[in-house]
């Protein structure tokens, strides 16, 4: 008995390298779950706990970043949220921008703005010093030790 060879249609060519679409999809799910915790934790601590929203001022932020726990928390929040949002906008552009030139410009814009915000944000979190040495005393917040 003769059997028709399967598959009759040509198999898809094996692609090499990382499957970005797959990892992008996984990233969106995983970061989404973590972001729910990070964002609501952030909102609760800043707006509800203690004195609530009235507590937020320069000293409040300085106090939070004196604690390594909040430094790590805010770094995670910054990176995960920006990449999550950037990847979402990349997907939208891939869906709706038919013109190749327009799509490239939009994708480059999304990449650049995401990268710049991540770099600047990280720089601020890790180089933040509320009482820089050698600054004019009248510009310093009240809680800094008087030299």
């Amino acid at each position: 008995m003769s059997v028709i060879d399967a598959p009759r249609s040509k198999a898809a060519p094996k692609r090499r390298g990382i499957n970005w679409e797959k990892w992008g999809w996984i990233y969106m799910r995983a970061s989404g779950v973590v972001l729910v915790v990070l964002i609501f934790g952030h909102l609760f601590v800043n707006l509800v706990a203690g004195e609530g929203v009235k507590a937020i001022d320069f000293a409040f932020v300085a106090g939070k970043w004196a604690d390594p726990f909040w430094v790590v928390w805010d770094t995670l929040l910054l990176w995960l949220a920006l990449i999550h949002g950037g990847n979402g906008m990349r997907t939208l552009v891939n869906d709706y921008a038919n013109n190749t030139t327009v799509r490239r410009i939009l994708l480059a814009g999304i990449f650049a703005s995401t990268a710049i915000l991540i770099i600047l944000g990280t720089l601020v979190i890790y180089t933040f010093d509320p009482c820089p040495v050698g600054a004019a005393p009248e510009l310093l917040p009240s809680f800094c030790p008087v030299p």
Partner: protein
Amino acid sequence: MSTAAVMENQPHVPEVIPTFTATLIIRRFDPEVDDEPRWQDFDVELRGTDRVLDALHKIKWEQDGSLTFRRSCAHGVCGSDAMRINGRNRLACKTLIKDLDISKPIYVEAIKGLPLEKDLIVDMEPFFESYRSINPFLMASGSPDKERKQSPVERARFDDTTKCILCAACTSSCPVFWTDGQYFGPAAIVNAHRFIFDSRDEGAQVRLDILNDKEGVWRCRTTFNCSEACPRGIQVTQAIAEVKMAVLRGKP
């Protein structure tokens, strides 16, 4: 005996079936005359048992013979007459007029996302092309000279996706398919699911590789339009999610 006596005593009155008039506004397009599709309205006298397909037949047979649409079995099995009725993809042969709001006109147009050919007919070739590319046939080694056994549980695993009639209602309701013609579309993934989870089939890996493509399952945005559109009630979005998980696992 008593029943027959009662029936004889009653005077014979021919039964009058109540009718009503419905307005259908149909998106017409004749490529030889029109540059753009146009909307045309028809008033049709219908009965409570009539479907949108019956209304289209009445228009074609009694009012305008040029109205063009596909239909074959007219009973929801062949999948020829998927169309957009009042903005939703349905089978014309499974949509009763009385279930629609007949105080307003009924809008009928061709399904979206596929090239319009004439009136309610679209070019289904891109749809069938993506269907073919997922190898929609049993891939098994060995010669087919004895039964391939399967337990009821193994059969139930993919029962839902065997119901597909390839009407394209799901694929042409998918916003990703509207904007990206490269996407396989829900129907192709449903039919891949039907074989990927079939215990007799040995080609799951080939199909998972095909659907792990840039234009494969990852393009799905989980909008549930396909599940809502399916005239067979297939849980299309769930089937796509199961294929996604199978791709991640690397096996069914």
